[in-house]
């Protein structure tokens, strides 16, 4: 049994060897943020969907340092630390119903107070949040933050709502829908802010990678109050 499957693999290897010249560095790049079980998760997040396409996109491949600078500028914060690097491959799921595209799912890793946080947003084709959730969260207050009521506060928001939210200070510079998002536990402030930073970063990346910088105009004009 092993022999037959091994033989098949070996045959595939030789075919692939001739036609596929993958740059080796790609295979050893930094780790991104994938859905734990894409088949199950896509069906759960988009009931009625019939399929999805997985895209791996890294900033260094899409535009390099200049793109990173633009993303940092839009985010209002630098990419930091050992793990938020230019070569992180982001996983963007395009979801389909039949032949029609019906939305996107995208997640990012964020540094939480006690461990890594994986923030996922489910978006419609216009980049508006349909759903928000933590795939992974290490926190003393995980139960409250993972409560569906917390995630529901993000529904209906888009990147233009986040532009006057300063991810460094955690404050908004004018009336903003983001202001209405309430932290369920004051002690979980670092994780709450990581969630907001992760959401803004998620939305910027999707805008850069797939929406053709649809929301860049709001950033250039100074945020929601100027729209």
């Amino acid at each position, binding site marked *: 049994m092993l022999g037959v499957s091994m033989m098949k693999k070996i045959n595939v290897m030789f075919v692939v060897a001739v036609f596929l*010249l993958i740059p*080796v560095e790609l295979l050893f790049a930094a*780790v991104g943020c994938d859905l734990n079980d894409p088949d199950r998760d896509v069906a759960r997040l988009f009931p009625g969907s019939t399929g999805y396409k997985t895209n791996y996109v890294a900033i260094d491949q899409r535009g390099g340092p200049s793109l990173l600078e633009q993303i940092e500028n839009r985010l209002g914060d630098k990419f930091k630390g*050992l*793990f938020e690097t230019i070569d992180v491959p982001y996983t963007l799921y395009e979801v389909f119903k039949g032949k029609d595209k019906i939305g996107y799912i995208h997640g990012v890793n964020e540094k939480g107070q*006690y461990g*890594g946080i994986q923030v996922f947003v489910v978006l419609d084709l216009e980049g508006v949040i349909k759903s928000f959730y933590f795939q992974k969260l290490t926190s003393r207050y995980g139960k409250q933050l993972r409560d569906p009521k917390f995630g529901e506060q993000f529904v209906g928001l888009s990147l233009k709502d986040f532009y006057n939210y300063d991810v460094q200070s955690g404050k908004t510079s004018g009336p903003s829908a983001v202001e209405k998002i309430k932290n369920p536990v004051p002690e979980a402030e670092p994780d709450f802010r990581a969630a907001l930073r992760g959401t803004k970063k998620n939305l910027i990346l999707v805008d850069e990678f797939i929406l053709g910088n649809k929301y860049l105009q709001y950033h250039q004009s100074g945020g929601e109050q100027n729209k």
Partner: protein
Amino acid sequence: MIKILNVAYKNLLRKKTRSGLTIIGIALAAWVLVSLLGFNKGYESSLNRDIDNLGFQMIVTAKGCPYEAATLMLKGGTGLRYMPQNITEQIAREPEVEAVTSMLMQAVFDPNKGESGGYSAYLGVDPATFPQMKSFLEFKQGKWFTDPDALEAVLGYEAAELEQREVGDPLLIIEKNVEVKVVGILKRTGTQDDGTIFLPLNSVQKIFGVKDELTGVGIKVKKEADMVQFEEKMYKLPDVQVVSLSQVKQTIMTLVSTAKVMVFSIALIAILISVVGVINTILMSVMERLQEIGILKSMGATAWDIFKLIWLETLILCISGGMIGAALAMATAKLTEVLIRQLLPYAPSGGLVQINLSLIILTFGVVILIGLLSGVYPSWKAGRVRPLEAIRSQVE
């Protein structure tokens, strides 16, 4: 000789496509051969290095206890069994032992890890012995904990990446509601250590309430010691299982040998095909030039001159193919390695395909031998051509 070489070369140029295709056939066979010999050499040395990098050649665990994190996770964090801590001293007294280190693996359920929760594993290690035994581990940030009772952690690179931790950050052991401080992040090793969270042994014993208990003891055996005999001795300890890394290596090599046999069979087939291709090309060339050979002989060329001419043509084809194949193998070594990694049941870290000069020389030797053997029949046939018959047959 140079004149004959020149004639042989020009003869091959007369049928460029046919000669080219034959060279490609030989090049592919040489490519496969160099890559496989390189894999044969690289795999074993990488596996040996990985096993050396484990720091110990033998692990003694409590009977039925999973001795590594992956198994522990698969079992859902259950199935831990313990040995008394004093077993370490008992083992250390054996004359074959160079060093020992005590370990205690624990796992906790984190309901917020993934959709339905997941396990996080922690390995308690003795700060006095473990770092010495794993002296090859390098730090990306920070260093090992030194206080055996400290609430500190050292994270493997992937564990740190998943938890987005850096030196100085707190890390929460969720079920126990205990906070530890990250004091070191290891560089990537390509081993299980990358996903491990290391804590001081005493701290793990206290946090998890398993005082004076261990799940494993790593043993570094003296070079001159008889491993088999020592293994038997360890089995005499009550309620333990012994995992010798030489056994692990043997098992891996057995698994890999199946793949190797398959791949070498393919290489053999590729070589046979190229041999037939060379014979066919040269034989056709001889048949097409019968008249020419007949004239050469009538002008005084001996059977040995004709034999040499045809043989040289074969050799030129084989040497050209060999050179291209060797260059191709060197250029695609990294790609071959990536593909092999996908196929093998276990692939050690480091270079899996090691191509060096001796390997290239060996392959060249094989290719030249193929050339000499494949050229014998066509050359012999050409040498036996009778001038008049050859000229007459072409005229007819």
